[in-house]
């Protein structure tokens, strides 16, 4: 049931390819390395600028280690799901992406509810109105810290035709939010489940949405930029 394209299509393709710039060998590895280094540099720079929370040394070691380890693991898993090329070069499988997009935020939610590292000097607010009101600063900080991280993550798969760009972008948004969450946990001296939920975890939702939208938009833009019938094509 196979048909063959016309004989001149091969020649047309080769002529068009000669006029079309291609990515250099090992572009993926280079982009991933630069993105990783950029992420680390940005994270360390913000951490240096903000500083550690003043009650850092009084925090219970086990709870602190659980929090840091879990956030690191979730961040790395989200990046792995978001930046996986897969056997077919179209991104991670749908099952992995759905599992990461739903499972990892559930782990974060469980972490925030179950583990609340606090010392004698840790600040806290009573009542939801005060909690929400004071959490807005952390929301803005988390979002602002995560945005460049998301941007660096989105640069890596540029040019690849992903089969699930929305889910992939959501994973990258989650990864960025998790790294920002980790940083805020190490900086913000306010304790309590309510503050951690609203101030540190909630920004993950808009960031996941933004990541999904950005990657879908990038994919559409890439698809719209066809070379056929345009300046690069000998068909023009």
């Amino acid at each position, binding site marked *: 049931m*196979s*048909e063959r*394209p016309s004989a001149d299509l*091969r020649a047309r*393709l080769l002529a*068009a*390819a000669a006029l079309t710039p291609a990515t250099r*060998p090992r572009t993926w590895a280079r982009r991933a390395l630069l993105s990783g280094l950029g992420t680390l540099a940005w994270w360390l720079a913000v951490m240096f600028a903000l500083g550690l929370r003043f009650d850092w040394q009084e925090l219970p070691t086990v709870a602190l280690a659980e929090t840091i380890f879990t956030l690191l693991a979730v961040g790395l898993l989200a990046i792995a799901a978001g930046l996986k090329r897969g056997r077919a070069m179209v991104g991670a499988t749908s099952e992995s992406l759905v599992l990461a997009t739903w499972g990892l935020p559930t782990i974060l939610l469980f972490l925030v509810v179950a583990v609340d590292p606090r010392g004698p000097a840790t600040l806290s607010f009573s009542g939801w109105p005060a909690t929400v009101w004071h959490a807005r600063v952390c929301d803005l900080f988390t979002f602002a810290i995560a945005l460049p991280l998301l941007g660096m993550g989105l640069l890596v798969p540029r040019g690849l035709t992903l*089969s699930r760009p929305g889910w992939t972008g959501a994973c990258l948004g989650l990864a960025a939010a998790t790294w920002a969450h980790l940083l805020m946990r190490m900086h913000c001296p306010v304790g309590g489940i309510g503050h951690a939920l609203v101030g540190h975890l909630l920004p993950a939702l808009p960031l996941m949405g933004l990541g999904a939208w950005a990657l879908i938009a990038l994919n559409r833009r890439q698809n719209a930029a066809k*070379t056929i019938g345009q300046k690069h094509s000998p068909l023009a």
Partner: protein
Amino acid sequence: MARFAAGEDAALGDVYDLGAPAVFTFLMKLCRDRPLAEDLTQETFLRIHRARGLYRPGAAVLPWAYTIARHLFLDNVRARRPESSTSNPWPHDVDASPTATREWRAPGPSAEEMLADAELEHVLDDALARLPEAQSSAFRLLKGEGLSVAEVAAVMGTTQGAVKLRAHRAYQALRGLLAGHFSDSAAMAADISQGSEGT
């Protein structure tokens, strides 16, 4: 592909030779328009050319090409939607000669067998064209192109379970459509034979 990804420009021709017939056939069945299928085939391989630096050594090229081709086809459909008209069920330029379409068949068929096969293929294509794209693509890639369920899931950006379900639904719908077609043909043949007996 490894040579091509490593920067050897000339290897694009080899990649094209290996993948173009399958990709073109897939696109041809989807859009039923030879010039468009050729344009989309060319664009598919240009995408691979542009993204070759992103290639993971050992990755399967054909599912990648199918994914790009399918995305390009769907974008083309979206772009043409305002001016859309029902697709021509009998493409004007499809080479209906048996030698062009019967590569898979055992050698030495009779002219009647070749004609029947060609008709069946057209009927099947026509029936598949009436199904939703997701169902017909799942069916074509699984049954026509011989991809595994996992590969089709990757191409279509869905789960393996969803691929099986879509292919099953396509199969059921095809059974209905083909049964209707052949019962109509049988009724027509009966009418003709009755008419000839009456005269």
